[in-house]
Structures are given as structure tokens and as C-alpha cells.
């Protein structure tokens, strides 16, 4: 059982509060990603969990045992670093087996475990090589092997894929996912790449400025972001946002922005109380319906096609009306031409509404 609980973790470097108040419950066997831009505190949180960074406030609990003051190697965790951090003066075998050597395990045991792990990652032939002789992908696998051989209770990943080129990145991603499916070890993964987070994780904690903005299952983060920040951080392309005034009256809703008017009727109740709200209206590209300009439905508006992004499997159409611009996803055959006037329809059920001031979700 390797359930990790972070309770009210905080870290300050003098006047700088890198981590303010992070509380996360990471269930056994889960793959959890700490997601956010640089400086949000995700790596510091990871380092505190590992024991590499002393905690300013809060506790870390592993299976009910508080481990907050413990040295890194006492915690039963293993870490994979961004720049691999392989020991340049040792060969691959010694790199992988270093931890076991420090534990004073008998040589035959070290030998067997290192070889088994190396074979699992197809590194068997490279055991005698020096680190400098390996390619980036091979080094990454050695870093993985080094963590795996310790049979830890928790894997910690510090942006391990950020240094790889796109093709290698995709391959390693799959490798890590497969590893997790196989070993089912609790894993905490840090990255700024939201695509990576979506692909790999069971749960995502979106962080900003030392705080967790939202924590939940990956698909929930995607489908129901509870904060404007999360909504625009997750999802590619970025969620389209329009600022305006929303008026609710019974089953009817009206949205007014500069040069834009949208109306919906028959909205399911109760969504929001009657009244006027200053909102940020968000809609994902795949939820926007594109139709010709002959369509005159109220829940849409006309705009001119500004830009096309053909990706092969989909085409993203950027449509502009005055100061507003939204992107719609269409099948490539149905893509309009640049300059054409089209109608974008925004179905009520697909909208994400955030209070313009607090940025919190209101629907």
C-alpha cells in the first residue's frame, strides 16, 4: 500500500513563497500529475515529497506514517530527473545498481536485479558502457532503470521528457504509461505539458503560484474545469474565451458582448439563479458547431474565417467577429475557405461559464 497524502505543504525561500498550501490525496496505484507553468511550485512540491527539500510547513504521510522529516532514502521512493542525472564516472551497470550497493545488498542479488531491470528496458547490451556513450533515449531508460530496480513504493518524475525531441518524447511517454500499467506503482509526475498530463495521468493537480487550483480525475479536469485558469491551461487548442454579460431569466439565457449577441432557450433548470452575471464564457473547439451563414439560430453568430490549421485528421478554423475570435474543429472535407463568412453555434450544454471577477466556475 503506497498512499501518499500531502497535508498543507508549504515552502518558503526567505520572502518567496514557492509553495503556499498544497493538500493532495494520492491513492495507492494512482498516476498523479502536478501540472503547471514554471514557477508554480510543482517541482518544489515533488522535492519536498522526496525529502530533497526541507518542508517549511505541513506534513507528508505515506500509508498513514508521517515521513516529513525523513531522509530521502528512508522513504522508499525513487526519482527520475529531467536531465537524467546519471553518474558520469560510472558505467550503466553501476549507475543502475548504485542504490543497491549503498544498501549493501549481496553481489549476486545486485547482479540479478540490475540485469533483470536492464533487460526489461532493453538495456542489457549496454551495461558495460559509459554514460557519455549513450544516446538521449538510452540515457533516459537508464534513469528509469535506476529508479525501477529499487522497487520503490512511489515513483517520482521531475519533467523527465522535457529534454527529448518530439518523436522520442512520444515514445517514452508510451513507455512510461506501459510501465505504470504493468507495475501499478503509485507515481507522481511533474510537467508543464498538459497533453502529457492528459495522456499519462489518472489524476491531475493543476497548480499556479504555489497553490493547487484544481485536483481531480484527468477527464473531469478536462470536461469540468472549475477555474478559468484550468480551463485555458488544459486542452489543445486552447479553450476559446469571450468576456461579456450573461442574463438568466427562467429557462432563457442571453449573452451580450461587444458586437455579439447569443440567446438560448429551454435551458435545463436549475443551472443558475435568475439575474445578471459578468462572465467569461468558454467553449472548446470541438464543441463549437460550424454551419453556413444561412443558419440563423440564436445561439450562434456570424464571423469571417481568418485562419485554417489543417492537422490532417481535423482542421481548426479560426473565426473572427469584431474583437472576438473563436476556434472550431471540423472535418477537413467540410472546412470553409479563408475569408468566407460562417456561423458558429455554441450549444448551452457545452458552455463553461466563469465569474469574470473570481474566475471560478459558475455552472
Amino acid at each position, binding site marked *: 500500500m503506497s498512499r501518499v497524502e500531502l497535508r498543507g505543504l508549504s515552502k518558503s525561500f526567505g520572502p518567496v513563497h514557492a509553495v503556499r498550501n498544497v493538500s493532495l490525496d494520492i491513492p495507492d496505484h494512482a498516476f498523479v500529475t502536478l501540472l503547471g507553468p514554471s514557477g508554480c511550485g510543482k517541482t518544489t512540491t515533488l*522535492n519536498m515529497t*522526496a*525529502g*530533497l527539500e526541507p518542508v517549511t510547513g505541513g506534513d507528508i504521510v505515506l500509508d498513514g506514517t508521517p515521513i516529513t522529516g525523513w*531522509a*530521502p*532514502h528512508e522513504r522508499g*521512493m*525513487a*526519482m527520475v*530527473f*529531467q*536531465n*537524467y*542525472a*546519471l*553518474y*558520469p*564516472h560510472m558505467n550503466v551497470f553501476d549507475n543502475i545498481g*548504485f*542504490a543497491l550497493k*549503498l*544498501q549493501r545488498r549481496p553481489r549476486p542479488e545486485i547482479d540479478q536485479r540490475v540485469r533483470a531491470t536492464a533487460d526489461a528496458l532493453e538495456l542489457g547490451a549496454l551495461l558495460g558502457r559509459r554514460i557519455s556513450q549513450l544516446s538521449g533515449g538510452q540515457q533516459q531508460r537508464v534513469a528509469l532503470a*535506476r529508479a525501477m530496480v*529499487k522497487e520503490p513504493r512511489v515513483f517520482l518524475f*521531475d519533467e523527465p521528457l522535457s529534454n527529448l525531441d518530439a518523436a522520442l518524447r512520444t515514445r517514452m511517454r508510451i513507455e512510461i504509461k506501459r510501465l505504470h500499467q504493468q507495475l501499478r506503482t503509485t507515481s507522481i509526475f511533474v510537467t508543464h505539458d498538459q497533453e502529457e498530463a492528459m495522456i499519462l495521468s489518472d489524476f491531475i493537480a493543476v497548480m499556479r503560484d504555489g497553490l493547487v487550483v484544481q485536483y481531480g480525475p484527468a477527464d473531469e479536469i478536462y470536461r469540468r474545469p472549475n477555474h478559468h485558469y484550468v480551463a485555458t491551461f488544459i486542452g489543445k487548442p486552447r479553450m476559446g474565451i469571450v468576456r461579456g454579460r450573461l442574463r438568466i431569466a427562467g429557462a432563457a439565457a442571453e449573452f451580450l458582448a461587444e458586437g455579439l449577441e447569443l440567446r438560448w432557450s429551454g435551458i435545463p433548470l436549475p443551472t443558475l439563479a435568475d439575474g445578471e452575471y459578468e462572465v467569461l464564457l468558454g467553449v472548446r473547439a470541438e464543441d463549437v458547431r460550424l454551419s453556413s451563414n444561412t443558419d440563423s439560430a440564436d445561439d450562434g453568430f456570424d464571423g469571417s474565417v481568418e485562419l485554417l490549421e489543417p492537422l490532417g485528421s481535423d482542421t481548426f478554423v479560426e473565426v473572427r467577429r469584431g474583437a472576438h475570435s473563436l476556434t472550431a474543429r471540423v472535418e477537413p472535407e467540410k472546412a470553409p475557405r479563408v475569408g468566407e463568412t460562417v456561423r458558429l453555434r455554441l450549444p448551452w450544454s457545452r458552455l463553461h461559464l466563469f465569474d469574470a471577477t473570481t474566475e471560478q466556475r459558475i455552472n
Partner: protein
Amino acid sequence: MARMQRLRPAAVYALVALFLLWTVAPIAWIATMSVQPEINYVSVPPQLRLEQTSLRWYIATLADPDFVAAMQTSAVVSFVTMLLCLVIGALAAYPLARLNVPHRNLYLTVSVVSRMLPAMILIIPMFLLLRWLRLLDSYLGLIMVYTAFLLPYVIWMLKNFFEQVPYALEAAARMDGCSRLGALVRVIIPVTAPGIVATAVFAFIGAWNEFLFGLILSTSKAVPVTVKLSSLVSTTFHSDTSLVAAAGMLSLLPPVLLVFVLNRFIVQGLVEGMKY
């Protein structure tokens, strides 16, 4: 490589040859003096006879027990000083490079400033201190003084080298089970090995070439070879200048040998050591 000057190759070689001549001439001359009888180079003009080249002045110098004692003193003191500097220096350089120690900047400033203190200001108090500790004219006394004097420089150099090690490497070692000290010994030091060699060379040569402390603090039992040489030179009526020349060559031999063997490290160390 930027060929910013289109000097003809011949000019480059000529100038380089001149510089090499300039560099080597003083040593070459005394080397010559050390293998030729004095008569040959005292005459005007010098009459160097190749067939009279002999190592007998070296043999004679090495037969002089006082000189041998001086060489031994220098060897032992320099070697132990180097070791002591490295160990104590590494222990001190690590926290200054990596750890969040209170008043760290104060220690850094002190080490920078104490690097520059001239020996002259320390010599009299040092004499009184060693006399009080009964360490005058002793190996231990010299070792303590030399180590203290060279330590700031050693700490600074090692600190610079340690800072170049990526922090993740240390973190990986700690995750693998090293204590902080263990990470220092098993990971940081092996990785900075070239820098440590450079620092070791500096410490050794620095100790070997020391003069003022040896001059004042030792009288007979712990006289370093630099002091012995200067006393040979100043004796106005010595039997044979070739002997002095041989002694001079012997006293500059170890540092010169180190330069030949470890020059790559020395260059790196020089560049590293003068960084602030």
C-alpha cells in the same frame, strides 16, 4: 579559430620561438651552469666544453646532508599541506557551494579577502604564535602555517568546481541512499576530479615555493629547500657556483615536473581559480 591577424606563418613561428626562448633562457642558463665546471662559464667569453658536462655537482649536492634534509622537509611539508588543504578545503567548500548555511555570504567574503593577505602581515604574530605552541622549527608548525595560508585559495577553487556539478546529480545520489556527506564523497568528488587535481597541484606548488614563513619560522631542523637555496646563494664565498646551480635546479624540479605532467589541469585551475 578566428584568424584575426593575417600574419604570415613564418612571423608567427618566429615570435613564438622568441617567447619560448625568453621563457626557457633563465632556466636553461642555470641548467648549463649546473653541469659545467665554473671555470668554463666564468671566463670571458664563456668556454663551454661539451665533453666536460658532468652530473657530479648534482651528486655532490645530494650528498650534502643539509640539502637533502631541506629537500625532505619541503617534500613532506608540501605533500601533507596539500592533503590537509584538500580534505579540510573540500569539507568547507561543499557547504559554501551548496548548502543554505546562515551567514554564508560572510564566510564567502572572508575567504575571498583572506586569499589576498600578504604573508608579510602575518609573519611576526605567526612567529610568536608558533613559539608559544612550541612549534618553531618543526614540520608540524610549517604544515599548520602553510595549510592555513593556502586554505582560502583552495576553498575558493574547490567551491567553484563543486558549483559546476548539476544539482540533480547530488539529488539522485541522495535518492539512492547517500547521505549528504556520502554524496560529496561518492559523486561530487569523482565528478570534479580534474578540478581537484588542479587544486592539489596548486596547493603543492604553493607550499613548495613558500619562502618567507620558512625563512623566519625555521632555523635548522625544518628548513625548506627554498630557504636553503637562498642561503647558498648569499654566502659570498662559496666553493663552487656549479653546486649552487645544481641546488637551484633541484629545488625547481618538482614543480616543473608537475607542470609537464599535469599541465592541462593547471591551465583549468588557473582560469577557474581567478574567477570571483
